[in-house]
């Protein structure tokens, strides 16, 4: 194969010199290093794909829980972009390429999808401050952060404001009218529901909360699942949103934005770990798919654990990373203090990622096996 002689580094005779010596030049050109073809993708394009992939999930969210989530997404995105600009300025980094890379909006949307739709506005502000200013820029900005910014932000608000984080809305199939747009705005900005509404009527515990509270009262899974909040596998509404996330995930796989190893490992490990328990005692342990379709697991499998910056870069590393997220999620759901452990599982695995990468480096061509 031709070796690109580094013509651009050691310039050949300049056109002027050549003309001076009577060497006939027909045409001159600007040079640049190979490869010469236009780049097939960009960071912006990758992030845009993630946002596109989230559209079906958001749409179903609106369908089941009303438009409040859109307000949260707008709020979080606004805060995220403002904070990003402020932090870039503070770090003396150029605004243009970085604000355009869309990484802050991705963080914002993922965060918004994790919090209850009627959370007060300052939850988004607090979450984005942690996510963008601390988790991302304090570590050096795009590409350098150790922790997934959205999960870092979510984990902090979960710990700091536990009460607000439990006010989930009841999904539409439960015969509760979704909270209308203006009512949602009112609730988010004043922290109180407008007159006829009350938390008791619009709110509902998530299926995971229900499992938790009822299981602690020694109820059998069968009895728990008789609760109207449950659908076929997970919670009513929730399971459909999970399907929509998975659909977006397949889009990302097809666009080669994410790699198959992470979602397969996350979901595979959850199923693999819960099947034996369920087989041993189906009365006490939920059906494995219920685990998959509850909480943020599908979202995490396709959108959060797949974050390249804070995940693993090697193929085997990604399998290990995904399996770690799956197993830790189950452990926290079962024994931890929070009903859903996805965020903590991801953060814990973020810490382990560099080490996993080191020990799972692929075999270099010509070394070992086939040589």
């Amino acid at each position, binding site marked *: *194969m031709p070796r690109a002689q580094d013509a651009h580094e050691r310039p050949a005779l300049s056109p002027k010199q050549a003309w001076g010596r009577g060497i006939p030049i027909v*045409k001159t*050109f600007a040079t640049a*290093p190979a*490869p010469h073809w236009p*780049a097939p993708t960009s960071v912006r394009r990758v992030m845009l794909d993630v946002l596109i992939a989230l559209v079906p999930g958001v749409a179903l969210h609106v369908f089941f829980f009303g438009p409040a989530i859109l307000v949260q997404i707008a709020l979080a995105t606004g805060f995220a972009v403002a904070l990003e600009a402020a932090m870039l300025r503070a770090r003396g980094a150029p605004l243009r390429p970085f604000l355009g890379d869309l990484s802050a909006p991705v963080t914002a949307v993922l965060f918004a999808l994790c919090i209850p739709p009627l959370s007060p506005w300052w939850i988004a502000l607090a979450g984005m401050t942690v996510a963008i200013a601390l988790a991302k820029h304090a570590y050096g900005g795009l590409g350098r952060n150790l922790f997934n910014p959205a999960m870092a932000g979510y984990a902090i608000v979960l710990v700091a404001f536990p009460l607000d984080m439990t006010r989930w809305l009841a999904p539409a199939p439960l015969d509760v009218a979704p909270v209308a747009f203006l009512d949602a705005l009112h609730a988010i900005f004043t922290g109180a529901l407008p007159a006829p509404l009350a938390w008791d009527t619009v709110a509902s515990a998530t299926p995971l909360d229900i499992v938790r509270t009822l299981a602690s009262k020694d109820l059998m899974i069968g009895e728990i699942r008789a609760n109207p909040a449950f659908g076929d596998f997970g919670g009513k509404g929730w399971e459909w949103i999970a399907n929509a996330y998975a659909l977006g995930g397949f889009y990302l796989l097809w666009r080669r934005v994410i790699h198959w190893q992470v979602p397969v490992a996350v979901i595979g490990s959850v199923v693999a770990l819960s099947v034996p328990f369920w087989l041993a005692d189906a009365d006490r342990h939920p059906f494995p798919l219920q685990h998959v379709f509850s909480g943020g697991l599908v979202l995490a499998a396709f959108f959060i654990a797949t974050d390249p910056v804070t995940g693993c870069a090697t193929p085997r590393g990604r399998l290990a990373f995904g399996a770690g997220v799956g197993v830790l999620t189950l452990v926290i759901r079962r024994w931890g203090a929070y009903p859903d452990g996805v965020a903590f599982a991801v953060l814990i695995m973020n810490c382990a990622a560099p080490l996993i990468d080191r020990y799972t480096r692929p075999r270099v061509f010509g*070394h070992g096996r086939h040589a």
Partner: protein
Amino acid sequence: MALSRFHGGLRLPPQKPAAAAAVVPCPLPPELVLPLAQHAGLAAEPCVVPGQVVLRGDTVARAAAGLSAPVHASSSGVVRAIESRPLAGGDGPCIVIEPDGRDTWNRLPPLAWRDAEPAALRERVREAGIVGLGGAAFPSPAKLAASVATLIVNGAECEPHIACDEGLMRERAGDVLHGAALLARIVGAGRVVVAIEERMLEARAALATALRESGLEPIEIVPVPTIYPEGGERQLIRVLTGREVPAGGLPRDIGVLCHNVATAYAAWRAVAHGEALTSRIVSVTGAGVRAPRNVETRLGTPIGFLVGAAGGYTGDAARLVVGGPMMGAALPHDAVPIVKGANAVLVLGADDIRAQAPELPCIRCGECSRVCPAQLMPQELYAAIRAGDDTEVRALSLDACIECGCCAYVCPSQIPLVDAYRQAKRAFAEQRADRARADHARERFHARTARLEREAAERVERVAARREALAQEQAAKAAAEAAPEPEPPKTMGKSDVLAAIARAKAKKAAQGKPPEGDTE
């Protein structure tokens, strides 16, 4: 035949407008510029003087001792100058010939390839100045020295846009196959495989027909999928044999030899027709060329002139590249001659070139390692190079990088990865050279110190020996005076001195030092 796959690679649009048209000859340019270094290894040494008349095929520069190749006049005419001219990699010494327009050949006597000794055939390949025409321009005889079991003749083009091998196989299939058989005879290969790309249907048919008509021993014609960098030697061997050339090793280590189809063709012309390597097929292509095509071009033809032979530039011409879009070198102007390794002149249009984009930080997306045919981790390699961590760079196998550019092509952050590797490799090579130089200097210093010490010691010994001799002479004289019949004292004294010197020599020899200081 079951094919293997190599890791990574890219399915790139083939972009072969040049392949469709017939191969046309390039007219004779007003001057031919023949660089002395157009092959890997040492530059050739000129053996003509300005004003000398040469014929096409005359040797104008001899191969240097070591890895090198001779250069031949690519048309008949007069040597005008031996001077520095702009080349793709900076200025370099060239022989400039003004053609006389007659293009008179001076051929070597043809050899009967089935009867000639393999060594004689190999010598002919050397004499004819044949180097790897796939682009690497590695002197071919060096690769033909070892015997191997399998010869792979590589007809899979290196990169998109390049179509010179396809044109060659389609139009001169018989000569290509004879060349393959010839190379196989030189290295004693029992199995010969011609690898072509799946999409080269006409070339495949032409080869099959030519094989039937040629009466040659069986040659396998194997279509391989077009995945860049399939044309890379190591990747192709992996695909065809399922085996990997060991890191740091050569294909011959696993009994395989790989030559480009154009090299096989050139070897055949040299043996059967006595023609030295004076021309090659070059794909002149891209949106910046009016009539993209394969052009049979005399070595030394200025690129600007060659583009003229393909209809000239279009208004869109934005970048001039020798080679393909993935690995080719961009040139600042077109007054650069075609050399043996130049497989394509690619003029890209404004829409086909990478926009100047700021380099963003690595987002660790892993695309680069997904496509890396050497199975490296380009992102980590880049970080290690930036951190100046040489140990880590070596641990990540920088030397296994084939500089294919797949990683830099797909990187969403537009990081110039392959550029960094190339620079790091060069820095390592310089370090090695520096170390070798330093070692050499140190050795010379030690040798000098040792010599000086030895000489000082010898001087001391000589003085001691002379003293001893003198003392013995005096003692002998005294004895002679005392003796009743004195012998001639002078003779006696001299033999004593000789004896003393002999003793001293014996002593030095016993100490393992050569008695060389004696003559001083």
